[in-house]
């Protein structure tokens, strides 16, 4: 009953079967990813995914306060997802809402299995996610950007986590729902995946999908996740060249010159020189 109503009200597809923003059903919104956007954070990243604009900052591992929350054999991962008051159409009240608490939790749970938390007992790793502008699928975009920020912070990881939503709107399965498709549609399934390892770390479902539809949507999403995963890798590699150049400026080239050296002539051995001082 609900679905016929919504489809009647809003037209989600044009004559050619394209979506409102001209995408095919399995096409992603345009996205942009940046690393090291914040200078004072230990690691940071910024994503624009559709109209989502999200900043992530990572601090730590650092001393945990309050101390009683410390875990004896591993670090505590704290994820805070917050939306700016200006991030949505109607002003969002600044207090953390139930929804923000939930999203913080699911992002934490999506990232946790990919981190080597046991390397830093009793410490805390803080991830702050600030949504500057929200569109559909902000929890997925946040997961993507948080995992890049963690890699940027040099925190050992099993792999990068990539998030994309899939869902059903206007009777069709769609990849990467926009805000409107999410609101009007029948189902929304945010998924986060450690693509390199082939493991899902987040799967939620809001609305109704049949078993077959869910299986189908998991298939559809692989391509989209792969695309974002490649972008994550690309951007980390690029940031990595920048870092190498910074090191190259500040320190003289070291003697090691064996196998490395395609195009950049920067010394890698920065840790050794600082130790000897």
């Amino acid at each position, binding site marked *: 009953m609900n679905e016929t109503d919504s489809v009647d009200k809003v037209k989600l597809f044009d004559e050619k079967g394209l979506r409102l923003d001209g995408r095919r059903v399995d096409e992603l919104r345009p996205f942009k990813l940046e690393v090291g956007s914040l200078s004072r954070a230990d690691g940071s990243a910024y994503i624009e995914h559709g109209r989502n604009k999200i900043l992530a900052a990572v601090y730590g*591992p650092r001393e945990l306060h309050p101390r009683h929350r410390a875990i004896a054999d591993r670090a505590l991962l704290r994820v805070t997802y917050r939306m700016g008051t200006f991030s949505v159409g109607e002003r969002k009240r600044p207090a953390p809402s139930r929804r923000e608490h939930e999203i913080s939790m699911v992002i934490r749970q999506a990232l946790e299995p990919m981190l080597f938390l046991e390397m830093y007992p009793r*410490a805390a790793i803080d991830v702050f996610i600030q949504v500057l502008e929200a569109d559909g699928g902000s929890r997925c975009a946040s997961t993507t950007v948080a995992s890049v920020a963690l*890699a940027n*912070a*040099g925190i050992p990881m099993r792999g990068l986590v990539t998030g994309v939503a899939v869902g059903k709107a206007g009777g069709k399965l769609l990849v990467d729902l926009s805000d409107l498709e999410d609101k009007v549609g029948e189902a929304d399934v945010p998924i986060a995946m450690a693509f390199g390892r082939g493991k899902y770390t987040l799967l939620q479902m809001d609305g109704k999908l049949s078993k077959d539809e869910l299986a189908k949507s998991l298939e559809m999403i692989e391509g989209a996740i792969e695309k974002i995963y490649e972008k994550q890798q690309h951007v980390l590699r690029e940031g990595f060249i920048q870092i190498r150049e910074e090191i190259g400026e500040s320190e003289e080239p070291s003697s090691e010159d064996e196998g490395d050296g395609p195009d950049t002539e920067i010394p890698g051995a920065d840790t050794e020189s600082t130790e000897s001082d």
Partner: protein
Amino acid sequence: MPNKRIKDGDRVLPGDRLGVIEEFIPGPGTFQDQDDIIYASVTGLVRIDMSERKIHIEAITRTPIFPQRNDIIIGEVQHVGKKAVIINIFQVSGNSCPIPYSGSIYIKNAAAGYVEQMRDLFRPGDIVIARVQKQVLGMARLSTVGPRLGVIHSLCSRCGHSLIHQNRRLTCSNCGNVEQRKLSKDYGKIYELMHADKSDSPTS
């Protein structure tokens, strides 16, 4: 990139496949999963030592400061047991350690000769310089064997004033009490040792 063979000097990201366990011994910045494949866990350059068949990643990002094998640490004696002492580490290789981390010195690794009991070498509150031997269960195993390693600052157990090393004896500056420690050659140079470089004050 599952098909590409990894070479020395390659740039890798967390989760990149480096090889199988038969090829290399995984070192820092790598890990081995249940599937017997070695992956990278940090962003950096691959370093392969073919003579030892070891692989590790030289991180290109910031690396969280954390006591690792062969690091020289400075810490405070928290507890003295009969056979071991527990140390709170607050400085690692000249950088202040952001995480509260503890280590232990077993009696065997405290001094070169025979040691009757640990009370003869350390007292709670002593500042100690030590070397990390290995990591066990989120704790560092430390050693103070060596002339430069050992206690660098200590207080009188009777009156609490600092002990001064003179005439090969450790004497209290206030009450004249004579005490015994496993001394480092650098005893008394605690300020110089802790502020040797840019690291900020370890007491926060």
